[in-house]
């Protein structure tokens, strides 16, 4: 900027109090008034941690930032935040400064310079979370990677559009790093880049933590013990140790920074946090699982031993004291039941220093009660306050006789409040450090109010249906989808809607069966030959696998006594009875409407009609065999709408109702195979059968309109097949696509058959089933 048009209020003329500061101000060469206002203050803060050379570097960097042409904000952010960043990274700015300046330069050179301000503004908070220069470097790497991959270009060689998600990412960074490790952050960012890289609005929503999948991936990548992983263990814990059982409902701890929710229980269930990190206190480590157990044990204690008290006549202080005493009473009883709990409780319970709170200037009520609570549980508490010791003594006397009771302990608590009351308890500054005991619930069940209070009660307001939003059919079931590139699941990615298939005329199907009467007769002969599966012993065999001792001895006796012995002294095993459940899954995508090419074209049938005939014959054949069989069709219209249509259930008979549904079979849309396989698999899994078979009839490879990556749905389908086989469901694919050899093997392995001549389908499908189950 030429000197001539400098504004009159140029802050360069500003005089600083100290000559040295004045020299640095000159070095900064900055004309922004807001910067001049805070410069001295920032510098004094920097002086407390930097030596002279470091200050020079600091001023140098600031000068560069001030001249980027982005206004005063980036410079202000840098001047104010940098000393804190350096402090967090163990006081040394040496390795960090070039990194940060490099990142700023990179953003300045690309269209992303608007992100510099949020980057600098949150850097201090990020540094406080990360605590080391290496970690901060990693964080910068992740951010630059995000920038490079989401900045758009028009003709391929210039990056012309700013990364939409980058500013949002910087704004969320401190919160993200509170929940994620840098590795988790990298995965979370990766997911956003890959799935929303080409959609600016969704990308912003993702990186601003506003979209559902963003939160879901965040939840998955969190560190600590996730509730979802230990839910069953906790359920067993309640049953086994406490003979209690209750619905456990997790609440989210990720998005509520100001009002941290506290565990509680009511008639709808026990509310626990969705994740617990391992706790490392001075008294030993407690695993996340054990923290959950402590929370549950505490609530169980209240349910067992606490009775609700009428709260109207007590002051908030009195109520707080009663809560502390009562919590300690039930914990004492819990420890009496299981002595091992003492270690967990004490490791989680804070141990306030006796002199941590100054009663002259602060309200020490919480501090006193926390110390008392510690002393009541910990025989080795080491506190010396005589009143505290006296009440500990009285508490133990009360409990030595038995369980005592809430009313009795409340009386003791009130006496304590009376004896220890101080005028300073009313002060506004309250001592909170080391007084929060996070495994205890909020004690809402301990109180009942005769008069209606104005306390917030609508914690779980029932969601009302919007006008015009009617419930149609079943709510969707969500399934994950496998992302082969990152080797992770995309959580809750696909919505499967399930419905009964529409009905047509059952007579049509009977007519089809009539048409294939000759084939049916042939099948019938084969069906009669099908071998059953269960093992049965056959005795009196001349040759067999085992000697039948009773018969053998009888024969020998006959022989010795001169009679003709029976030579059939062996026994063998044969199989009898079948225990097979089969689910026939039909791909009902648009391509089924195509006419059959080749030899069958003379009849002018579509693939759909042929499938209908084949499925009818198969259903009839399976019905003859008596195997439980279900039939369902699926098609999809993006990941938000996979339709799964019931044609026949396992327990339904092969009757007119089912035939009518089969007759109405129609095709449309695309083939999202993985979700349909998972959904069908979950039905098969619930069956009790020795062998569970999922037979898929399809005419093409998995595809959907919202998927552009080649091979993605194929990889997902393969993963779904793997999942099913791990859970005891055998999948077999019959493909009508003559070119299927390329991909069907990669999805189903050896368990597939490609049918070249589609017109053979009605004959081949039942034969295939018989061959599979022989």
């Amino acid at each position, binding site marked *: 900027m030429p000197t001539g048009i400098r504004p009159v209020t140029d802050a360069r003329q500003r005089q600083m109090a100290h000559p040295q500061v004045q020299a640095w101000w000159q070095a900064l060469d900055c004309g922004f008034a807001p910067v001049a206002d805070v410069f001295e203050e920032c510098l004094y803060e920097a002086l407390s941690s930097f030596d002279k050379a470091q200050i020079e570097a600091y001023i140098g960097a600031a000068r560069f930032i001030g001249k980027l042409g982005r206004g005063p904000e980036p410079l202000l952010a840098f001047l104010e935040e940098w000393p804190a960043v350096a402090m967090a990274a163990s006081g040394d700015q040496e390795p960090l400064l070039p990194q940060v300046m490099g990142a700023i330069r990179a953003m300045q050179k690309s269209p992303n310079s608007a992100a510099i301000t949020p980057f600098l503004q949150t850097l201090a908070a990020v540094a406080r979370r990360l605590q080391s220069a290496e970690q901060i470097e990693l964080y910068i790497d992740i951010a630059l990677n995000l920038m490079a991959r989401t900045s758009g270009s028009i003709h391929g060689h210039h990056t012309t559009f700013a990364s939409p998600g980058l500013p949002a990412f910087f704004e969320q960074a401190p919160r993200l790093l509170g929940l994620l490790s840098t590795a988790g952050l990298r995965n979370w960012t990766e997911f956003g880049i890959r799935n929303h890289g080409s959609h600016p609005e969704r990308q912003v929503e993702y990186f601003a933590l506003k979209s559902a999948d963003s939160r879901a991936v965040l939840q998955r990548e969190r560190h600590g013990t996730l509730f979802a992983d230990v839910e069953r263990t906790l359920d*067993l814990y309640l049953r086994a*140790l406490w003979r209690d059982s209750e619905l456990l409902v997790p609440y989210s701890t990720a998005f509520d920074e100001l009002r941290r929710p506290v565990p509680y229980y009511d008639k709808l269930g026990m509310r626990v946090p969705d994740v617990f990190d391992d706790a490392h206190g001075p008294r030993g480590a407690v695993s996340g699982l054990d923290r959950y157990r402590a929370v549950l044990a505490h609530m169980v204690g209240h349910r067992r031993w606490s009775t609700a008290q009428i709260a109207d006549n007590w002051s908030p202080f009195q109520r707080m004291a009663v809560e502390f005493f009562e919590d300690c009473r039930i914990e004492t009883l819990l420890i009496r039941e*299981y*002595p*091992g709990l003492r270690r967990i409780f004490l490791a989680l319970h804070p141990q306030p220093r006796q002199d941590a709170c100054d009663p002259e200037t602060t309200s020490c009520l919480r501090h006193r009660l926390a110390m008392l609570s510690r002393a009541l549980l910990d025989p080795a508490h080491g506190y010396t306050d005589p009143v505290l010791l006296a009440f500990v003594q009285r508490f133990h006397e009360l409990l030595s006789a038995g369980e005592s009771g809430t009313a009795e302990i409340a009386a003791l608590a009130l006496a304590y409040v009376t004896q220890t009351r101080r005028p300073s308890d009313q002060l506004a500054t309250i001592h909170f450090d080391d007084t929060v005991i996070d495994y205890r619930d909020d004690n809402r069940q301990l109180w009942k109010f005769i008069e209606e209070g104005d306390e917030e009660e609508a914690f779980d307001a029932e969601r009302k249906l919007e006008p015009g939003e009617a419930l149609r059919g079943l709510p969707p079931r969500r399934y994950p989808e496998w992302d082969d590139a990152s080797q992770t699941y995309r959580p809750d990615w696909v919505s499967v809607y399930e419905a009964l298939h529409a009905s047509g005329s059952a007579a049509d199907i009977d007519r089809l069966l009539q048409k294939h009467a000759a084939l049916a007769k042939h099948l019938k002969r084969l069906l009669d030959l099908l071998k059953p599966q269960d093992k049965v012993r056959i005795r009196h065999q001349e040759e067999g696998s085992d000697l039948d001792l009773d018969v053998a001895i009888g024969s020998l006796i006959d022989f010795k006594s001169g009679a003709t012995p029976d030579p059939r002294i062996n026994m063998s095993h044969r199989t009898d009875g079948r225990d097979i459940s089969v689910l026939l899954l039909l791909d009902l995508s648009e391509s089924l409407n195509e006419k059959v090419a080749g030899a069958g074209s003379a009849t002018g049938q579509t693939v759909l009609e042929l499938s209908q005939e084949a499925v009818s014959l198969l259903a009839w054949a399976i019905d003859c065999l008596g195997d439980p069989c279900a039939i369902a069709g699926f098609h999809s219209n993006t990941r938000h709408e996979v339709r799964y249509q019931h044609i026949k259930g396992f327990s339904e008979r092969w009757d007119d109702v089912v035939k009518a549904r089969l007759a109405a079979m129609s095709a449309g849309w695309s083939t999202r195979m993985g979700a349909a396989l998972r959904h069908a698999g979950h039905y098969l899994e619930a069956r009790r059968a020795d062998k569970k078979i999922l037979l898929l009839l399809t005419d093409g490879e998995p595809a959907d309109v919202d998927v552009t990556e080649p091979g993605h749905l194929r990889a997902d389908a393969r993963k779904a097949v793997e999942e099913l086989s791990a859970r005891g469901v055998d999948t077999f694919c019959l493909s009508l696509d003559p070119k299927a050899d390329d991909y069907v093997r990669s999805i189903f392995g050896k368990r597939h058959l490609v049918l070249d001549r589609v017109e053979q389908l009605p004959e081949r499908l039942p034969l295939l089933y018989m061959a599979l189950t022989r």
Partner: protein
Amino acid sequence: MANKEQFLVKAEPYYQVQGQEVALYEAAYHARLPVMVKGPTGCGKSRFVEYMAWKLGRPLITVACNEDMTASDLVGRYLLDANGTRWLDGPLTTAARIGAICYLDEIVEARQDTTVVIHPLTDHRRTLPLDKKGELIEAHADFQLVISYNPGYQSLMKDLKQSTKQRFTAFDFDYPEATLEAQIVARETGIDQTVAAQLVKVAQTARNLKGHGLDEGVSTRLIVYAATLIGKGVTPRDACRMAMVRPITDDADIRATLDHAIDATFA
């Protein structure tokens, strides 16, 4: 005739009386009524029968039933020897001849058609026809039939026919209540009473999970095993894991819960 002496119970078996069962059994025996003892595995059914045989001074013939057992395994069969064939009494026949208590352990394990051979012995007839031999045995005046079974089996295949069930008087056994069970464990193995009580507490946590992933809780027998291990110098935690947790489950969640219960109990 088999030697009666060998079937006598020599020393008094330790049995902790829980209620009226001894008097009731004696009454049933005096009337020679067949008795059925029901209860979960390892709760002391066999020990009770042994104790009663000792108390009444009767010989006891025990048959552990299994699926491959045939009627002739109970009744008897012809065997071969140098001179031709020789009849050998089965355990049931022997008991009927010498006037012993015949105890068919876990009767549902035998197939139902096998079980039918006991029917003539269990009603007013008190006879056992040996059709192969052409003999009809009148049961000895002191003969009594006792069967045990565990109704906990969820299998529909393993149940007694109504016609069999309705020939017996029955006792319902269960694990004793906690203090009594601790006494039993302490007495049986000689370990400290408080340790025994802790073992029982761990076992009860497992019993609470019956039907929620466990088919059967930890039996008194397993507690006794754990106590025995402790008596041999094993630490209580290891003993519990080895004798009370690992045998009953392969489920990782249940194992974690029970391991935690052990840690919480032996602080």
